[in-house]
């Protein structure tokens, strides 16, 4: 059966109805400083984004959601004197939360992974961001951290510490640079250490040098890089095919063979004790790989600039539904994050069966049930139908 305008219309109508039902039965908790935020929506079948909206009253807002049942709902991380003014100048910026957006799209090798695998990977990355950087290095109080599953392919962290509200774009960029380990100078991490001395004519010269790594429990990037290096060495030492492992880290085969030869048991022991050898390739390799391992990949906005630097960013409204998955944008505590599986825990739509037509075979475990779907017409629960239709894997006739 060919897809046509009628089936597209039917799909949109179905999705809108499902979303409306959700908004009718689930009142959305409003963000703080509600009246100072700009809201924006994308409607099913609508062209572009409706922006510059503000809701003075909570009832207006609830009515809007039910009436329009938007595909995507956003609000501003910034607050303004006049949030509904149409230009930034007129809006009069008053401050903004610090936002981190992690998306599986931005992880290395993400395109090779399934949806579930990439969600898992981005979760690990997100935990690293929150525990190591936001709570650890920056020392933000946990009460100022709001964590969300984005409803799509990633996670968001909102820092609501009043100290960050007036950060300008440059100051935010500096934080991003820190978290991504940009401009890290290896001389600051690895220190040269003289291991032997020789004397000629009463003057002493260094006869041997070794590189010393900082202790793994040191604060900031120094300790982090050391931990990364040790983890890396262990990983290679434990691996049944160390050369392949190294190739995964982007080391050429010939270099990998040489590196493995060099990594004798004795060497590995020395590295664990913090002694790296002089070889420049080894040093480079360890620094770069440990950096990649321990830094966080952040999502980029339209201008290829990390979302965090934008002081007037629109972000998904917590509690709303993501139009491409039907998942809820869900608030999480750090504890909940550990066990959190978006494919089970953000399913909020009904399980009423409905017939959809798949364009291709598709397998997914959702709501604790595994679906192995073949191409063509098939009956699935509504929540899965919304997911398949939203991601254009299926259509409705």
């Amino acid at each position, binding site marked *: 059966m060919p897809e046509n305008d009628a089936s597209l219309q039917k799909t949109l109508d179905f999705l809108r109805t499902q979303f409306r039902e959700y908004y009718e039965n689930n009142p959305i908790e409003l963000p703080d400083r509600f009246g100072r935020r700009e809201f924006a929506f994308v409607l099913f079948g609508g062209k572009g984004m409706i922006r510059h909206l503000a809701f003075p009253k909570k009832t207006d807002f609830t009515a809007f959601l039910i009436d329009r049942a938007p595909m995507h709902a956003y609000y501003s991380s910034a607050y303004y004197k006049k949030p509904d003014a149409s230009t930034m100048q007129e809006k009069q910026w008053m401050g903004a939360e610090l936002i981190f957006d992690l998306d599986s799209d931005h992880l290395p090798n993400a395109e090779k992974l399934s949806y579930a695998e990439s969600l898992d990977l981005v979760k690990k990355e997100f935990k690293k961001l929150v525990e190591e950087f936001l709570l650890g*290095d920056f*020392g933000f109080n946990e009460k100022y951290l709001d964590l969300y599953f984005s409803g799509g392919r990633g996670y968001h962290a909102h820092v609501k510490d009043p*100290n960050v509200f007036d950060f300008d*774009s440059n100051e935010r960029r*500096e934080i991003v640079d820190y978290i991504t380990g940009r401009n890290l*100078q290896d001389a600051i991490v690895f220190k040269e250490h003289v291991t032997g001395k020789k004397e000629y004519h009463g003057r002493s010269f260094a006869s041997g040098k070794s590189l010393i790594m900082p202790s793994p429990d040191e604060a*900031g990037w120094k300790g982090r890089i050391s931990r990364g290096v040790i983890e890396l060495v262990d990983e290679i030492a434990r691996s049944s095919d160390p050369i392949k492992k190294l190739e995964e880290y982007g080391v050429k085969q010939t270099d990998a063979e040489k590196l493995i030869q060099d990594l004798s048991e004795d060497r590995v022991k020395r590295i664990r004790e913090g002694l790296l050898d002089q070889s420049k390739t080894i040093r480079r390799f360890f620094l770069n790989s440990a950096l990649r391992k321990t830094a966080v990949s952040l999502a980029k906005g339209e201008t290829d600039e990390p979302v965090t630097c*934008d002081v007037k960013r629109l972000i998904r409204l917590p509690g709303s539904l993501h139009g491409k998955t039907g998942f809820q944008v869900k608030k999480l505590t750090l504890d909940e994050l550990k066990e959190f599986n978006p494919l089970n825990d953000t399913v909020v739509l009904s399980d009423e069966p409905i017939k959809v037509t798949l364009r291709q075979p598709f397998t997914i475990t959702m709501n604790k049930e595994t679906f192995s779907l073949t191409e063509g017409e098939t009956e699935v629960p509504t929540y899965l139908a919304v997911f398949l239709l939203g991601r254009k894997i299926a259509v409705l006739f």
Partner: protein
Amino acid sequence: MTELAVLAKYPFLNDTKEYIKSIGLSVEELLSHPLYERARTIGIERLDNALKNTDVGDSCVVTDSDCMMVVLSYPIARMVAVCVGDTYFKKRYALGEAYCAYRNLLDESSLFLLDAAKELGLHAGSIEEKQQIRLYFKDYLRFAPTHYKEWNMTNRTIDRGFVTVSQKDLARIILEVLRKRINDELDARECDPLAIRMFSEDIKRFQNIVSMQKKKMEAAPVGKLSVEKLPPCMKYILAAIQAGENVPHMGRFALVAFLHSLKLSPNEILKLFSTAPDYEEDKTRYQVEHISGKTSSTEYKSPGCDKMRTYGICPQEKIDELCRRVHHPASYYSAKWRQEKEKT
């Protein structure tokens, strides 16, 4: 009460302000009484030194009366700076005061530095067992010259929100706090009519020096570049660099790439930068040649208006009609040339 000699070195401290108050002088006495003639002379010296050497300089302080004159010279210099009424002049003077304080702070104990830092609103403390200083990362971000790689937070130790800094680093950060604070204070003050009368000659002299320097800058033989026709963003960055302000890396980059796109040679670009107080010919030359593709494989393109906005270096309050019609700083510049041609 802190020693008078210390007050003379750091006239911005609260103790100094208290001391001045305690003398109970009226503005009129300060500006016209023969007893304070020396304070007035030192005040003018402060301004001259700031312009010439980027440092207001130390006056000879031996006796208590010397100290008092130096202390009193500070409010006098400020009053005159306000009356000169020029942004560039005020910036230079603020930098001169801040730099002088920085130079003196380098010789102080860490305890003194910490007290001064706290008084200036910085959240700093010490880690006693390690003899290190900790500074809240927000203060660090705001005031440290992070456009230098070694100042990037990545290359610093930061733990639970506090960045470890050396005494010298803290003094450098205090310089920045002072520069900004003094500059803001000068901007907020009105000119005192009596000060205009008493210092009319000096004020005129300073105004002349400033306008000469500006003319020199504008007429600086930088190819065919016309500073007047620069778009507001580039004008703003250029002025900030020449006044010795901290311009974020992206700003410096944008300006160099822009000037390069106007076919200015690295030498000509360097000439524009050379008036900056922290100018280092070698470093700047390397960077300029890198951006212009002389020493690197890429010739960087000058960022467009969108990018300038994202990076926060499009001065929203300064954009004009022409800005609204163009999407790239370079098109602004060429449009200005066209407008002039059409007129003639």
